[in-house]
């Protein structure tokens, strides 16, 4: 379970950044990336965080994963506060982005073991979990080959394995399919679905409406750091005034 209450994040701006951002920020010392948002992600459900580039999706997810500290508001992950109990929060989550985020000079086995060790998994549990994941993802044939020499598909499988090796109850996906080909994107979407089937809490950010339609139960649309839609996907569909999801998304962003 993720509970977000009145979350706000400001980034301080230097002179150069103020100049680059233009007239609007000429006299502003900070940039509000996330502005007073509240939402809840429930176990067994997929929460889609939708928004164009620069809307505040990654900042929100990074705050959930305790990489960034909120300026105000609070985040609770499985009952632990993201600021006062950051380590406990990180123990609960699996974090995945569009980049495979792997160490080229390690093998998939070493990569997965590294993450397991950081999560304090004991040897037996790790071995069982690793074997299970490597069976499911069909990774045994390249388990001891250096990651640099693997194909994109093999790397993606390794990335999936390292994200879920510690069997986290909460999954955070930050634009996980961005830049990936159709086959690899499908593997990720399958992973997201399977997480829901296992009863995990899933938050998933994207700017592709099609993906939201495929897997999400609840959605929030974020633009310039603010939510201007936060409800179930079914409700969104009911309220649609445009012929397609994409048109509706663009229309709503334009209205914001």
């Amino acid at each position: 379970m993720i509970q977000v209450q009145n979350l706000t994040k400001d980034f301080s701006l230097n002179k150069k950044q103020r100049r680059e951002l233009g007239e609007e920020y000429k006299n502003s010392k900070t940039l509000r990336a996330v502005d007073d948002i509240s939402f809840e992600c429930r176990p067994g459900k997929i929460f889609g965080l939708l928004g164009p580039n620069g809307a505040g999706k990654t900042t929100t997810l990074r705050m959930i994963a305790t990489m960034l500290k909120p300026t105000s508001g609070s985040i609770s992950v499985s009952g632990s506060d993201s600021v006062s109990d950051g380590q406990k929060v990180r123990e609960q989550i699996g974090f995945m982005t569009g980049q495979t985020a792997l160490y080229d000079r390690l093998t998939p086995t070493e990569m997965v073991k590294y993450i397991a060790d950081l999560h304090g998994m004991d040897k037996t549990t790790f071995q069982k979990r690793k074997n299970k994941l490597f069976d499911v993802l069909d990774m045994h044939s390249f388990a001891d080959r250096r990651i640099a020499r693997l194909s994109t598909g093999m790397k993606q499988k390794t990335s999936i394995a390292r994200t879920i090796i510690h069997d986290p109850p909460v999954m955070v996906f930050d634009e996980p399919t961005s830049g990936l080909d159709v086959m690899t994107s499908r593997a990720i979407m399958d992973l997201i679905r399977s997480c829901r089937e296992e009863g995990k809490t899933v938050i998933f950010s994207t700017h592709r409406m099609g993906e939201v339609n495929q897997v999400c139960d609840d959605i929030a649309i974020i633009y310039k750091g603010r939510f201007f839609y936060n409800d179930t996907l079914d409700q969104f569909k009911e309220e649609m005034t445009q012929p397609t999801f994409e048109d509706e998304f663009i229309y709503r962003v334009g209205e914001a």
Partner: protein
Amino acid sequence: MKFLTIAKKEVIDISRDRRTIIMMVVVPLFLIPVLLGTVLKITKSMAKKASEKQLKVQIYGQEYAPDLYQAFADMDKVIILDQIPTDSIQSYIQQEFLDVAIHVDSDYKVNIAKNGQAKIRIQFKGTDSFGITKDRINGILKKFENQIVSERMDRLNLKPEVVRAYNINYEDVASRQEKFGKIAGGWFPYVFIIFGFMGAMYPAMDLGAGEKERGTLETILSSPASRLDIVLGKFLVVLLAAFLTAFLALGGIAVGIQRIPDIPPEVLIVINEVLNPKTIGLIMTLVLPVAAFFSALLLGLSIYARSFKEAQSIVAPLNIVIIFPAVIGTLPGMELNAITSLIPVLNVSLASKDIIAGVINPLYMAEVYMSLFGFAGLAIFWCVKMFNWEKTIFRS
């Protein structure tokens, strides 16, 4: 203990990086002896070549000093020329068709006969290697001059004491170790410092900026490891790389010294006396905090950089900052005192000189440790801050 997990992984990772291995093992262990040997071999062969070279000499006014002319003609490896006109001397010497032109005045004989001074003007090219041409000509003239002086003294019934009023006898109380320490002692820590820095450079860039570039930083930041664990794990590996490279550089020097052709045995004895485990151990206690200082500094700068390339451009000028005080420390006359013992890198260089020479002042030594540990502590504190600072860690 998560920092140990991180350190273990980083050791595996960098040990498989070709660039790091080249910088850490190949350069200090193989390149130093090869370079040291080659440079000394070339220097020696150049000096030999210059001293064995046939000197082309023309004596202008040889008719006024036939005995001097004969002295040159009798010398080995001297060819006497007599065809070059006076107005072409300069261009002939410039083009190395002639090495030396000796001008004897017409009153040479008269001056010598009346116990006076004969004027001799010598033209040569002072850019030849090691000034050997000048030394050889000087040697011949000195020998001939001594002969004339000796004849004069016999003629005048004078003893050598008449022209040499002092019988000077220098007695050097400095031990061989002290002399070696003061002259060459600064170079050992210099090698440790430079190689330690070079050895830390690639791992630091890879473990900071490289992590950002690969996108793996988020993986590790979202793990249960705290920022302190991450910094500590990475810092220990960079420090290990720095220290290992410095040690291997010492090994490289040891091998290199054995390869120096015709090294005088007494010098070898001094080197072996000086480079005993106790002295090396003591110098290492200085190298450790200075290595910690620049490991933390490099890691902090590396995490600030957006990419490996940017890290390289930030770190490269630091080479000069490190090299400069290390070189200053090797200069003769630079001594460890209350002020120099506070300047990092320079103090290591100067203190090592005194340690090798066996004349280290314990008060200054304490000051050196205080300064080094202080700076290392500050650098580590700053590095942890850099990892905790959102603006740095997610700088894009």
